[in-house]
C-alpha cells in the first residue's frame, strides 16, 4: 500500500501556494478551537486521535472540519505565531476553514479523490500543488 513513492491524490478544490512538508494523517476531524492549543500548535483535546501531536509546519490531512467559526482568526493567529501548518487537506471542509486559511495565506484543499490513509502515512514528505489540484508523496518516512 505504501510502496509507490509517486502516488498522488487529486483534490476538487484548492487554494494557496505550492508547498512541501511532513504529513500528519488524522482519522479524526479538526477544529482550531476545539482541538488545538493556539500557543504551542499542539493538539490538546483529550482523546483526540492526534492528542500531543504538533501541527507546526506539517501538511495536515483531516477527513472533516469540525464546528465552529473560530478558524477565521485562529489560522491567522497561529500563522503570525509561526506555529501554523504548511497546508490543510480536508476530505470535506466548511467555509470557515477556507475563509480562515485564505485570510492567513495557508494552503488549503478539500474533496480528496480517495482516502489518503491508504496511501499516505504520518511522517511521509508530501507536496501540495493547489494549481494542479493534487497532493503527491515525494518520500516515505521509512
Amino acid at each position: 500500500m505504501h510502496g509507490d513513492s509517486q502516488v498522488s491524490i487529486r483534490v476538487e478544490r484548492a487554494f494557496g501556494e505550492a508547498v512541501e512538508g511532513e504529513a500528519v494523517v488524522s482519522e479524526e476531524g479538526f477544529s482550531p478551537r476545539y482541538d488545538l492549543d493556539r500557543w504551542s500548535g499542539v493538539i490538546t483535546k483529550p482523546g483526540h486521535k492526534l492528542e500531543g501531536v504538533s501541527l507546526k509546519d506539517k501538511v495536515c490531512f483531516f477527513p472533516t472540519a469540525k464546528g465552529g467559526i473560530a478558524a477565521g482568526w485562529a489560522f491567522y493567529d497561529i500563522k503570525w505565531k509561526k506555529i501554523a501548518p504548511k497546508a490543510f487537506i480536508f476530505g470535506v471542509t466548511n467555509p470557515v476553514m477556507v475563509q480562515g486559511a485564505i485570510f492567513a495565506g495557508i494552503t488549503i484543499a478539500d474533496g480528496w479523490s480517495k482516502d489518503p490513509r491508504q496511501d499516505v502515512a504520518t511522517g511521509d514528505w508530501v507536496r501540495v500543488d493547489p494549481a494542479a489540484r493534487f497532493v503527491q508523496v515525494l518520500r516515505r518516512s521509512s
Partner: protein
Amino acid sequence: MQLTAEERAILAGERGEAARRALEYQVKVGEFWGAERFVPITNARCFDFEHCRRLGQDEGEATKERELIACLRRMDVITTDTCINYQTVYQPHFGEHVAWGDTGTVIYANSVFGARSNFESGPAALAAAITGRTPEYGFHLDAHRRGGFAVELRARLDDLADWGMVGKLVGEPHQSYFSVPVFHGFHRTPIADELKHLGAALASYGSMGMFHFVGATPEAPTLEAAFGGRAPAERMVIADADLERGYAGYGLGGRDARLVVFSGPQQSLLEMKRLAQLFDGRKVQEGSSCFVTTNGAVLAQARALGYAGTLEAAGVTILQGVCFYILQNLSLMRVKNGWQNLVSNSAKIVNIIGAHRFNTILRRTQDCVDIACTGILK
C-alpha cells in the same frame, strides 16, 4: 466569477483600499467554492472577537479588545456582544441573504427563518459588511438547502439539554457542512430555545449549517417538501433510550462537581426565568462555581424582572456579553481552580471546550442546578 461593473470598480480601488482588499479576498473564497457571482446582503455579523471582562483576564488582551471595539464603532458597526442576535436583535425574513458568523446563528437563520447564509467567520463577515455582498455558494443556493437524511424524533425531549443531545447524536456521525438533516414525527411543536440548542449542537458536532423540522421550519411543510423530491439518503430514529445512553456515556473522572456553566449559546430571557425558578431559595455549594452568560439586553430585562437578583442571591455569577468558552486564559483558570470537570446543560459547550483540557459532562438543567448546589455529581 462573473463580476458586475460595480464590483470591477471596487477591485480597481474606486471605493478605497479597504473595499478593494475585502472584495479581492471574497473573490478568492468564492472561486474556491465555485461561486459564479456575488449576492447582495442586508446584514452581516461576526462574534468571534475574543472577549474578556473579568475573571483574571489578561490586561493586554483586554486593551486590544477595547481598541478593536472602538475601531468597529468608528466603522459604524453595532457591537451587541451577543451570539443570540436572532432572538434579540434581528430576525431576517424568508429568503433574505445575510452574512452571519457564529455557527449557531447561521444554522438558526437558515433553518428557522428560511434566510440564507453560510458560516462567515470574522474576516469574511467583516469583508461582507464592507462590500455589501457575499459570494453565492453553499446555502445561498437552492440545491444545497434540500434535506439529505431523515431523523424521526420519538423521544420526549423535555429539557433543553435533550435537544443538544439530539444534535450530538445526529451531528457526530454525519460530520459535514452540506449534510442537511430533516426532523419529523415529533409529538408536539418545538419552541425557539429548543431549536436554538438543537441547531447549536448540530453546527458544533456536525459542522452543519442547516436542518429542517417538518411542520415547524418554513422549507419543510411536509417531509417530501423538505427533501425537494429526493429520497432520504438515510433514515434514523432517536428514542428516549438513545438519550439515556448518551447521558450515561460521559466519564465522571474523580466526580469533581465544582464548575457548572449555563452558556453557549447565551441564555434567553426564558432560560433566565427557568434558572431563577430552579435556583430560588438555594445556594451554590461552597467551593463551587456556577456561571451563567447572557447578553446586555436580556440581562437588563432579567434584572427588571428579578431573575438576575434571584440567581445572584444563590451565588451564581452572571457574565454579560460573553460566552464561557471564549474567555481568555481558560486553561489557566482551570489549573488555578483545580477544576477537572465542567458540567453544563449545553451540548455545544460540552463539545467545544476540550482544547482547554476540561473533562466535560452534559446534564439536564435541573440536574445541573442540583450539582451546583450540592457539589455531588452522579
